[in-house]
């Protein structure tokens, strides 16, 4: 939160010496508050005042880096208020207490999920390795090595400092989870020595807040909050209250991203874990730890995340033009659709799967879906005809067959009237039906 002019004024020397180019310290403070000038234009600010100012102008929520990923850094509670900036990550849960075969199978299953959706790689970015205090360092290291072998970023959960230290020395860990009211000093030493993000938990929010204050006082602000072994209701309440405290009540102690361990909240219940992952994607979970990651989980969850973390001010568009699919040449049929990135992604994907060469014509429809742009008057017989003319399709492509999206079948007559000589064919409603349709058509 920005400081008010008066608060800044109180920190100035109040001598009105004009060295900053302003008539008074008050005038200077007002400009700083508006962001019009920077505080260093006054050469007489005390070190103490500068420190207070930099603390007060810190962003409400810190941005924490894990490998090449960034977490936190949010400034609003909801995406429509501005935008959400750093998407949440997913993590696969493994525990050193589990049998080796189970760990191997889980990891193998999860790393198979790796695909692209609208220019974004979808995969489990991190692996969460739980090592209980009763485990040996050798066992912890062996399991952490299995996880590290995937190349994904490693989160180690271990509350015993000596054990954590030995594992972190042998395996490249990125996050060390396990600090609490009783062990934070020793675990902090392990994390800071290795440059790891430190995960902190507490038996309740009061104790958590306390421990974070102590860690910050000790100089560590490379932290993440860990919401594990509580109930679903408590974990949800905590995630919301922590984010609310940071962004609404300017409580910077809680200005950290949160890890939510869904395997702990709903052990073994894959369906419930996926539902909770959806809830925490919308409401303030920054790393979601799941007991499994299959395509069934990933397809809806990564799609949802991709939607929620788009900037509301920027429609996801592709450039209008001719997109030859499967090596389509001038004799391949044409199909028309809109410039909404999602529509393009879905439709082009299915066309590729069909193996049939098609010239996909993307017309300018304002970045909207087929029905939305049709309802808004941006995808019509007129706009399609205009597109064909402007792009000089008739001179570039010899085929005179044009496939319309099934959802705008009503346009057929009008398009025929506007494009004499063309054979207008109504395609299926859903892109998934295109494979059969195109194969049969050919």
């Amino acid at each position, binding site marked *: 939160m920005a400081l008010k002019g008066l608060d800044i004024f109180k920190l100035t020397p109040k001598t009105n010496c004009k060295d900053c180019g302003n008539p008074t310290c008050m005038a200077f403070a007002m400009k700083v508050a508006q962001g019009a000038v920077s505080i260093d234009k006054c050469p007489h600010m005390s070190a103490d005042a500068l420190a207070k100012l930099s603390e007060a102008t810190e962003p409400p929520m810190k941005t924490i880096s894990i490998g090449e990923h960034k977490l936190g850094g949010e400034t609003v509670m*909801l*995406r*429509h208020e501005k935008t959400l900036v750093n998407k949440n990550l997913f993590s696969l849960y493994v525990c050193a207490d589990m049998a080796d075969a189970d760990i191997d199978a889980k990891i193998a299953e999860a790393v*198979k999920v790796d695909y692209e*959706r609208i220019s974004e790689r979808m995969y489990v970015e991190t692996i969460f390795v739980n090592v209980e205090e009763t485990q040996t360092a050798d066992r912890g290291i062996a399991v952490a090595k299995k996880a590290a072998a995937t190349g994904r970023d490693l989160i180690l959960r271990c509350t015993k400092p000596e054990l954590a230290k030995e594992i972190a020395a042998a395996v490249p860990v990125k996050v060390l989870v396990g600090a609490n009211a009783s062990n934070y000093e020793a675990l902090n030493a392990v994390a800071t020595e290795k440059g790891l993000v430190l995960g902190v938990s507490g038996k309740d*929010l*009061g104790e*958590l*807040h*306390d421990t974070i*204050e102590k860690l910050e006082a000790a100089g560590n602000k490379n932290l993440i909050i860990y919401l594990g072994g509580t*109930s*679903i*209701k408590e974990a*949800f*309440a905590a995630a*919301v*209250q922590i984010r*609310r*405290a940071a962004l609404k*009540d300017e*409580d910077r*102690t*809680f200005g950290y991203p949160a890890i939510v361990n869904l395997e702990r909240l709903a052990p073994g*219940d894959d*369906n*419930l874990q*996926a*539902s*909770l*992952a*959806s*809830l925490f*994607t*919308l*409401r303030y979970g920054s790393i979601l730890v799941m007991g499994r990651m*299959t*395509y*069934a*989980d990933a*397809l*809806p*969850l*990564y*799609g*949802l995340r*991709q*939607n*929620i973390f*788009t900037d*509301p001010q920027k429609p996801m568009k592709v450039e209008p033009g001719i997109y030859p699919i499967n090596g389509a040449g001038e004799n391949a049929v044409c199909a028309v659709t809109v410039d909404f990135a*999602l529509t393009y992604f*879905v439709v082009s994907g*299915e066309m590729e799967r069909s193996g049939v060469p098609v010239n996909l014509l993307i017309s300018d429809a304002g970045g909207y*879906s087929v029905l939305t742009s049709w*309802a808004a008057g941006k995808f019509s017989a007129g706009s399609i005809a205009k597109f064909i003319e402007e792009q000089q399709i008739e001179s570039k492509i010899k085929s005179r067959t044009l496939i319309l999206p099934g959802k705008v079948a009503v346009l057929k007559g009008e398009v025929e009237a506007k494009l004499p000589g063309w054979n207008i064919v109504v395609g299926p409603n*859903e*892109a*998934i039906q295109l494979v059969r349709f195109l194969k049969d058509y050919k």
Partner: protein
Amino acid sequence: MPFTAKPRTFNAAINETVLGTGAKAVTLGGQNVLPLYFFDNTPKNAPAVGIEITDTGYDATGLPALAAFYDGAATPAERAKKAASAEGVSFVCLRFEGADPGGLNKSIADCVAVAKDVLNAIDVPLVVAGCKNIEKDAELFSAVAEVCQGKNVLFLSAREEDYKTVGASVGLAYGQKVGAESAVDINLAKQLNVVMTQLGVSAQSIVMNLGAAAAGYGFEYVASTLDRVKAAALEQNDTMLQMPVMTPVSVETWSVKEAIMAEADMPEWGSQEERGIRMETVTASACLASGAESVILRHPASVKTIAAMIAALL
């Protein structure tokens, strides 16, 4: 500084709307906190989960658990009975797919008979959804509303194009509940509620259907619209947006590729049924988190999961 959580309650609340009658009647809405924030205030009414059946039955190819669940249920009434017994169900939604003039075009009389049988077969509230054809739905809703008088049935939906006829018959003449359906847009939603109440339908008889999209398919608009509706209802006390929201999730999720692609065509994706259920539950959970007071789902496993999640948050 020690931390004390500040509960955030509002002076405004979501309207309470009752569906059905008797011991199993369901009250939607009532809360004066943001969606699912029951740690801010004890919940008045839990969000409700409905199960959808159609008059024509589902094609359960590739969905062995769904087929097994409805095994032996040959009529809509028998399917409704099974549906109502599924774990976590609060109400049954009967969708008249067969009424579509572009499809089976079943007569109004046939549909009315089905509705009566279904109503008699269940003790949970009934929600009736149409075939999306404006003319047919208006006629269908009116006829079904007439025979269900006194049962507090909700009809999905009255739209900009037909709210006058649907509102007048379903809401005014037969005293049922009216779903107000608009296209993922806060202004359109509000406008429809305004004209519907001007028509004389009481605000307490209206449930909003703001539309939906499957996770990954433009869901950001759904989430942001619901977020804004709840902010207007609670923070700004906008009485024309305080109607509880019901989101028909199943129709959206069971038509996307992730849910309908056969396992044989995409072996690496695994079980089709599991994919369909996840798509349905993930979308439903996101709708509830953003502001739906109730969701309509198709698969009994989805109903069970979402009901369990709601119970865990109360």
